[in-house]
């Protein structure tokens, strides 16, 4: 039996959610210039709305071609343009995979294994991500289904264990410092929402109502972010600003019965998410590269991307300043805006001008 790729909308939701929540677990306040927790929460809400706004051009394209990715549409309009976009999207996903791996390494060698070398965890992570990308989006999304339940249960468990620590007096008005920090927080969150670009490429692999899936994804992600932010704020208060990884600290202080600390749970969840996200982005990068390679060389796309990922992440892990810079507005949000909003919008407008054509996946 020849198998076609089948990813349910719910599975897509879980993959994207888990990929997005990864950044929340390793959020470090220094990177965001110590914005108050409640301000960040309001910023998340604003960011969610901005993300939905950014997806409007993609939705217009999807409405016309529900079974085609943005690359398929580009290839139909103009083959060289499709090649350029494939390179751009592929590079975007590869850079984000490198960033994910490097920030993962930074956390691991800072908080968990301070005595270890930085390259060994990266080699292992890239190896697992390679395997994940090799088996494909279906197993990745199925594993995401299990991980989703695990993450949910562990989050609830830790939240319940922290009940004695919640202090309502830690709550500060989100507009305490005015509106400007809210915008900064929203912008920072938007910078990290690289999964928006992933949606554009996963369209042909998804069965079901993609629009409702994306809406649910945004909603659940927002709820999760707000819950994490609220928990951090109420349990830690100003103490969160003294820790490099406040969310990790939450799990360290959570106690329940004989479980004196739950940072192992946090670490396990976080490693799962890091590997899943890196695997997803590696898969997408190879997917884009295959689009431009000739038939006989498509099989080298994944190994090539994996090697680049490994080399890039080992290098980036040692460049602390650059690690932060990739999430800055210029380093992060401009490419995102271009690829998520501008390119689909231009394609849609071009298609409108030239007349609509049938687009197939793999065009």
């Amino acid at each position, binding site marked *: *039996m020849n*198998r*076609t790729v*089948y990813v*349910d909308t*719910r*599975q897509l939701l879980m993959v994207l959610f888990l990929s997005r929540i990864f950044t929340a677990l390793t959020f470090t306040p220094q990177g965001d210039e110590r914005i108050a927790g409640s301000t960040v929460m309001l910023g998340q809400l604003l960011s969610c709305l901005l993300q939905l706004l950014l997806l409007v051009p993609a939705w217009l394209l999807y409405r016309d071609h529900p079974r085609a990715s943005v690359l398929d549409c580009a290839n139909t309009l103009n083959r060289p343009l499709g090649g350029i976009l494939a390179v751009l999207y592929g590079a975007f996903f590869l850079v984000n995979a490198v960033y994910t791996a490097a920030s993962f390494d930074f956390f*691991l060698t800072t908080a*968990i*294994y301070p005595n270890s070398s930085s390259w060994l*965890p990266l080699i*292992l*992570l890239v190896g*697992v991500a390679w*395997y*994940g990308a090799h*088996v*494909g989006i*279906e*197993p*990745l*999304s*199925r*594993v*995401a*289904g*299990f991980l989703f339940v695990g993450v949910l249960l562990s989050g609830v468990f830790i939240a319940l264990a922290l009940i004695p620590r919640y202090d309502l007096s830690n709550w500060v008005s989100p507009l305490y410092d005015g509106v400007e920090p809210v915008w900064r927080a929203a912008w920072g969150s938007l910078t990290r929402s690289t999964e928006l670009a992933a949606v554009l490429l996963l369209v042909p692999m998804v069965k079901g109502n993609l629009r409702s899936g994306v809406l649910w994804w945004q909603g659940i992600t927002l709820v999760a972010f707000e819950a994490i932010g609220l928990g951090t704020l109420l349990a830690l208060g100003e103490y969160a600003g003294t820790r490099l990884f406040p969310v990790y600290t939450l799990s360290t202080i959570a106690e329940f019965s*004989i479980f*004196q*600390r739950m940072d*192992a749970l946090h*670490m*396990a969840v976080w*490693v*799962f998410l890091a*590997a*899943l996200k890196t695997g997803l982005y590696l898969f997408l990068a190879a997917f884009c590269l295959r689009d431009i390679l000739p038939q006989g060389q498509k099989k080298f796309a994944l190994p090539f991307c994996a090697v680049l990922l490994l080399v890039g992440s080992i290098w980036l892990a040692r460049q602390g300043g650059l690690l932060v810079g990739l999430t800055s507005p210029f380093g992060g949000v401009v490419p995102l805006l271009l690829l998520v909003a501008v390119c689909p919008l231009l394609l849609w407008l071009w298609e409108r001008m030239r007349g609509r054509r049938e687009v197939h996946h793999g065009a």
Partner: protein
Amino acid sequence: MFEFYKRWFHYYKDSAYAPPKTDPALSQRLGENLLDNMVTIRQLYANSEDLVTRGVQVSGLSAQLLFCEGMVDNQAFAELVAEPLTSLELPDATPASLQKWLREESILAIDQKEFYTFGELFTFLMSGFVVLLLDGVATGTALGIQGFNFRGVSEPTTEINVRGSKESFVEPVRINLTLIRRRIKSPTMKFESLTVGSKSNTSVYLVYLTDCVSQDLLQEVKNRLAKVKMDVILSSGYLQPYLDEKTRSIFSGVGITERPDTLCAKIREGRIAILVDGTPFALIVPYLFHEHFQSLDDYAQRPYYATFIRWLKYLSFFVSMLLPGLYVAMVSFHPELFPHALLLNVAASETITPFPIMLEALLIHVIYEIMREAGLRLPRPIGHAVGIVGALVIGDAAVTAGLIGAPMVMVVALTAISSFVVPSLYEPVTVLRLAFILVGGMLGLYGITLLLLVVGLNLCAVNPFGIPATSPETPFSLYAMRDVLVRAGWKHLGGENLRVQDLPGSEVPEKRGGAQ
């Protein structure tokens, strides 16, 4: 780079092994001359001593009766075959009229078949049939009056239930078919016969319900079995790799059972069972991951208790796979995860033992596997000695001698007990356990997490016959979960039929079964 090794490998392969070949003489048709037929038979049979031939005159015509010694019921032969044949007096008997009499006017055996080739002759002969050859007729008649000895229907040895049936499959496939037929008295249940093995000519039966099974699924099973190119099939396990997907997975998409009631329950869900003559284990395809945690007892007990037992099985699976690795990882890399009092005990025990914790864990688990294997293979009279040795090796004596720590003994004991709760997963769990110990000892919780993810991806990549092995957990179906995480009551379960090809993620084109 590997060309040299490839040539070296094939050289040794070619010089010692050759692929199975079918003897072309076996497809030769029978002749009309009885003497010529007998000469050919003796040649092909290599004058083996177990062939019994008896020439007889039937209504003045020459005939030969052949059978394998010890395979025929002598009394039935005398009453049903010898007496009628020898006392037959056909007027104006000719080979054709005698053949017609055999075909249309006599019942010498319940199972009476005609055949035309020497290959079929030997197949019937070695299946315990009595073969009758007539001079002047190029057709043989096989009479099914088998009388060979076989093991009686007994209690299952690997799938023991408390409230379920105590019958299990036996070696002769025809007995197994009756065990199944007695349980589903429906004309929609079909047995389809195949022959595999160029030398063994093993009978293989496909069992399915025509109104439940997907024809595409059925055809795929047949296609895969048609690719079996072996000369001897001695066990259902020989066929399993041909039915499994190509993905190199630790987990198989083919299940096995020795219980007829379990088989009936599976085929009711649109699955196909494969019975192999000579082995009491049937294969079930497709087999999904959650089925390892189901047993027939679940459906005989109250739902709340069955649900509890099912959760116990899930827990046991993870404990048996992960506990030793987690323990090693925590002691080596994350001692802060131990409660304070426990940490002090663990530290005290580690001080007195000479081996690193990873080596200790590997050693003790390998010793346990050796003892378990020895217990399986030992003759029963001295089997109890394994228990005595085991208690010494993995017990207080070893702790007192300072070879292993007391916590490790507890870990091994708990792991061993947990692994018996889900016996169908024993093989992958055993290997994975050792892998997790290695990874936990070298890389800590980080390594265990990564390996767990790899195992998860490996499992999720399995699609037996186009159906995800992890369905209905993921892709998720709430309705189908009524028999996965919990065991819903029979009033609910029996109300509608769930077919395996209808599960989410299934790529089987034809969803609902149809009568042929």
